């Protein structure tokens, strides 16, 4: 059972780290602000989400697991709303 949990964490956290790497590469390599905004949301949403998913079975209590989930939900909400706002500001030429 614990081996199964470890394997699940390993896969999920590994994938999360991958998305952070991808997000950083995109932030550095993509040509303009709008495309960079696009990769940023991948790291925010998927990267942190997969890491939270991988850590959740390792939580000591239900409250701890819930806190992990709320942390991700808050970042998800903030990321989605600010991406929208940044995108709108960019389209109006405000940089």
């Amino acid at each position, binding site marked *: 059972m614990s081996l199964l949990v470890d394997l699940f*964490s390993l896969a999920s956290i590994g994938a999360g*780290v991958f998305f952070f790497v991808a997000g950083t590469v995109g932030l550095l390599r993509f040509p303009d602000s709008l495309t960079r905004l696009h990769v940023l949301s991948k790291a925010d949403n998927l990267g942190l989400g997969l890491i939270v998913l991988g850590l959740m079975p390792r939580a000591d209590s239900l409250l701890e697991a819930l806190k992990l989930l709320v942390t991700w939900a808050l970042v998800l909400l903030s990321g989605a709303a600010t991406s929208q*706002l940044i995108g709108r500001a960019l389209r109006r030429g405000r940089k």
Partner: protein
Amino acid sequence: MNQFLLAGAGLIIVTVAIGLARILRGPHDIDRLMAVQLLGTGGIAALLLTAYATKVPGVDDVALGLALLAAFATMAFLNLVDADEGGAGS
């Protein structure tokens, strides 16, 4: 397993830090801001990973606080940028 969690945390911190090169390069202030936002998210992820590996109590609350403030700087920045373009003076 703990070594793996810590390695993951280290990898995230390093990559996100490389992304901070955007603060140096710009070219716009908004690009710089995006790099800081990526650091914020990466910092939360690395913090959670380190917390589960080293078992320091209370770290989940710190991550929660950081998540609450993830949009804080961006909101302040956009408010100023919008005001500038409105032509109503600074």
